């Protein structure tokens, strides 16, 4: 990564204008971008915008875009509302120093397919709040391939959820071969699978198999697990074949569901 010019705006409107009008590239943690070898004419550092927070707004839990993985990992509020989900999802990412730098917003805005966080946020029914545009459904946002510049302000989650997560990697801290997340919030189950290795996706048929019951039985869980593997598509890469991913998908979905209801 080469940066010709770096600005650190303290005003969100100014940041948005630089991103929209001057083709400024917003910087989250910058770790992934740095590895890209890209040349960036104008980089917009978001670290002075006050977007580092995890808070309870009353009807939702909000995570500011510049909140680090480490802050999510050790947040008492997230732990209380989502039963340790976040520490399991982001706690295994590379090392502690790395997690002190990478941000929720970078992973969400970058729509990183390898990120367990994005699968977990899908399962939680998260919304993304874009500056000057308002709230968007994260699932729709993730599925779009548009290139219109935007500034992610925060991620909004339901006030609480029963949630579970399961992933498989060759070594600890490596990119996952596959991840599965499941959550029950507002009377609805959502089951998401990521690192397929394509972007995380919700499985509608898995959710249908679980119905509206908070504690589905073993049969419903098995049905949901195999439905996800049938419905979703998988590809091969250097870590695993598509067949292997399809084979382990029901196992990870089952584990995520069992954890969610435990």
């Amino acid at each position, binding site marked *: *990564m080469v940066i010709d010019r770096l600005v650190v705006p303290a005003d969100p409107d100014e940041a948005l204008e630089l991103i929209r009008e001057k083709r400024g590239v917003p910087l989250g943690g910058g770790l992934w971008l740095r590895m890209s070898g890209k040349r960036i004419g104008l980089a917009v*550092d978001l670290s002075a915008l006050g977007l580092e927070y995890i808070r309870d707004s009353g009807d939702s839990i909000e995570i500011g875009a510049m909140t680090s993985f480490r802050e999510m990992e050790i947040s008492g509020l997230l732990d209380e509302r989502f039963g340790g989900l976040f520490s399991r999802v982001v706690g295994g990412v590379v090392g*502690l120093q790395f997690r*002190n730098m990478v941000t929720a917003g970078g992973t969400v805005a970058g729509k990183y397919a390898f990120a367990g966080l994005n699968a977990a946020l899908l399962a939680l029914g998260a919304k993304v709040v874009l500056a000057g545009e308002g709230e968007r459904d994260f699932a729709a946002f993730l599925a779009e391939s548009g290139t219109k510049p935007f500034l992610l302000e925060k991620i909004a989650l339901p006030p609480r959820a029963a949630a579970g997560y399961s992933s498989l990697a060759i070594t600890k801290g490596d990119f996952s071969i596959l991840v599965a997340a499941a959550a029950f919030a507002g009377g609805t189950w959502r089951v998401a699978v990521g690192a397929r290795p394509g972007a995380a996706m919700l499985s509608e048929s898995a959710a249908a198999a679980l119905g509206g019951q908070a504690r589905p039985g073993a049969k419903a869980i098995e049905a949901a697990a195999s439905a996800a593997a049938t419905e979703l598509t998988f590809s091969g890469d250097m870590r695993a074949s598509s067949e292997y991913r399809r084979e382990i998908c029901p196992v990870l979905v089952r584990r995520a569901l069992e954890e969610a209801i435990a």
Partner: protein
Amino acid sequence: MNATIVVNGAVERFTFESGDMLADVLRAAGYVEVKKGCDTGNCGACTVLVDGKPILSCSFLAARADGRAVTTVLGVEEEARRFASFLAAEGADQCGFCAPGFALTVIALSRELPEATEEEAREYLKGNLCRCSGYEGQNRAIMRYLEACNAR
């Protein structure tokens, strides 16, 4: 660009290019105790503390350190020397290249989680790679160092 950074307690003014990383800026200014290993944000050799938190200086924009406190291993020399004696006692020091970043992360651990279990210590140190050893000596040294810190 310019930045005013408090390095090891001393206020210093730095001038650098927009995209320069903290490790390069510090090394160019003579803080050569900051090592660069992988330069991809994975090995932990370049670890420094920013406002007390361990970060990877090879991937941390120097501009982001403006107005903040940066600690290299020489800023915690006494603790680092003390930890090094535990490392040596376990025969865990070999080439030493990873040691400054490693020692800083151990010191951060001793401050954040002084009662850490071995499992917690391993998790905390997962981002510090050592290509000489098998980590067992380091693990023993860390646990004995924490015990000694807590006994003080």
